[in-house]
């Protein structure tokens, strides 16, 4: 499930990235490729998204043997289509020009800002919670680490493209090695208060970190969550510094936050106090005009 989540998240990300820079064919194609993954998630968990699978001590549903051929069928198809899409876009010169040497975060900056996930791996920092702090069955089906040294948007893009394929490999290995047995541990006593625990999980955007200090009344005394965007967002000032305004949206998009921030854009000329408000479509037009300029 965790890898299916990564697959559909990365596919979706590529579509949005394409949309931002005005390459909507990518958006259409990725949505088409992604949809069977959502159906598969629904088949396994009952939900397209937000699966409601986790419990203290295990999961709520097993993956039955009868579903395995269907899972293989879907991931085989996605693997083929994903490779075709990569082949189609990697020869696109204007696309490469929009991604290469844009929104660069050096290795040193990535280490200093402690970014995680594809944002770290795109800057040559080889960290991945699946390998560094193996949870679930990742010690047995560990993925291959995908790292790019360039630190630009292109680097982060390539990391995600390759990781999507790697996730497919991980799912195949996991299905092959799937053991029989109970899916949730019986917890027959109350969880004692005052105990603490920590855990990292590698989400599509990077490491999710949880801290729990147990408490009374069947609930934690303190539960701390740190989502990957929390750290990645703090690197944005470095990503966009010395870049152009038209590259801000794709640089921001390259850490895969939500894209809600681009609704309107207001230009204030400090000297004259003159204000110009850009609406979302005008901002998109600005970034797309740059793409068209490159294509000529």
């Amino acid at each position, binding site marked *: 499930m965790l890898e299916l989540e990564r697959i559909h998240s990365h596919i979706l990300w590529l579509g949005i990235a394409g949309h931002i820079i005005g390459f909507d064919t990518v958006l259409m194609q990725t949505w088409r490729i992604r949809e069977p993954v959502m159906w598969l998630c629904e088949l396994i968990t009952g939900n397209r998204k937000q699966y409601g699978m*986790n419990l203290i001590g295990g999961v709520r549903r097993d993956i039955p043997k009868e579903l395995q051929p269907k899972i293989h069928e879907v991931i085989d198809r996605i693997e083929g289509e994903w490779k075709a899409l990569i082949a189609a876009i990697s020869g696109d010169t204007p696309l490469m020009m929009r991604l290469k040497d844009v929104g660069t975060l050096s290795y040193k900056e990535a280490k200093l800002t402690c970014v995680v996930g594809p944002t770290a791996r795109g800057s040559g920092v080889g960290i991945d919670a699946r390998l560094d*702090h193996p949870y679930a069955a990742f010690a047995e089906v560990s993925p291959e680490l995908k790292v790019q040294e360039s630190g630009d948007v292109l680097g982060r893009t390539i990391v995600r493209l390759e990781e999507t394929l790697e996730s497919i490999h991980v799912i195949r290995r996991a299905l092959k090695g799937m053991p029989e047995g109970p899916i949730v541990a019986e917890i027959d006593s109350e969880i004692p208060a005052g105990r603490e625990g920590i855990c990292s999980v590698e989400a599509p955007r990077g490491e999710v970190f949880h801290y729990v200090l147990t408490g009374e009344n*069947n*609930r934690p005394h*303190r539960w701390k969550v740190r989502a990957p965007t929390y750290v990645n*967002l703090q690197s944005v*000032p470095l990503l966009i510094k010395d*870049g152009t305004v038209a590259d801000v949206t794709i640089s921001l998009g390259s850490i895969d936050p*939500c894209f809600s921030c*681009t609704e309107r854009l207001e230009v204030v000329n400090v000297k004259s106090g003159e204000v110009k408000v850009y609406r979302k479509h005008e901002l998109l037009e600005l970034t797309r005009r740059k793409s068209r300029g490159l294509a000529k």
Partner: protein
Amino acid sequence: MDARDVIEKIRERFRENLLSMEEKVSKKIYVTVDRTVLAKVARFLFEEMGFRYIVGAGTDRRDQNGDFLVTHFFSLDPDKIYVVLHASVPASDPQLEVDSITPFIPPANFAERETYDLLGIRFKGHPDPRRLVLPDDWPANLHPLRKDFPHDFRPEPVEGQAPPRKDPPAGATVLPIGPFFTVLEEPAYFRLFVEGETVVDTDYRGFYNHRGIEKLGDSALTYNQTCFLAERI
């Protein structure tokens, strides 16, 4: 490096100020230090030992211990080692203050500001201690993650609490992006400081969708309910 080496190095360096240190679970080291050296130990882990900073947090323990707990989390990734660094801030201290680690560990910036917003713990020497997660109309000195703050309490909105904006560098033009786009979740507000087309600096205000789920987890939900909430983050 294994966990024992890490424990040895910390002990060697901070012997007098260590209150406790234990590898509770394999490769997960819990360290409690005197709050006067919290920043020094954090800096040692980050700069000399090569640890990655994960996040910081605060906990209200006034009921049991009469204190607040300040915690910084670190990871040494290739060696699979975590260090959880605790320090106690007695509730009797009117300042509720510890030294900030943001000047040498930049990613602690958000975590320390959030801990002040939610619990009222001050981080001395923080370069930018503006409000981070609480809304612009939230009253001052009201910290919602404290245990005596009911999870469903809604304070009256007040004026004049919005955090000040950063001044642009001389000669730069301000170019705000955001904060709201009604269809998607998670709005954010970036103010770009530009010279011509080139971005020279930026200022960020976000957390408009802060939902207080940590508060729900520790006051309204059970363990299993929390799992479902955690999935929806």
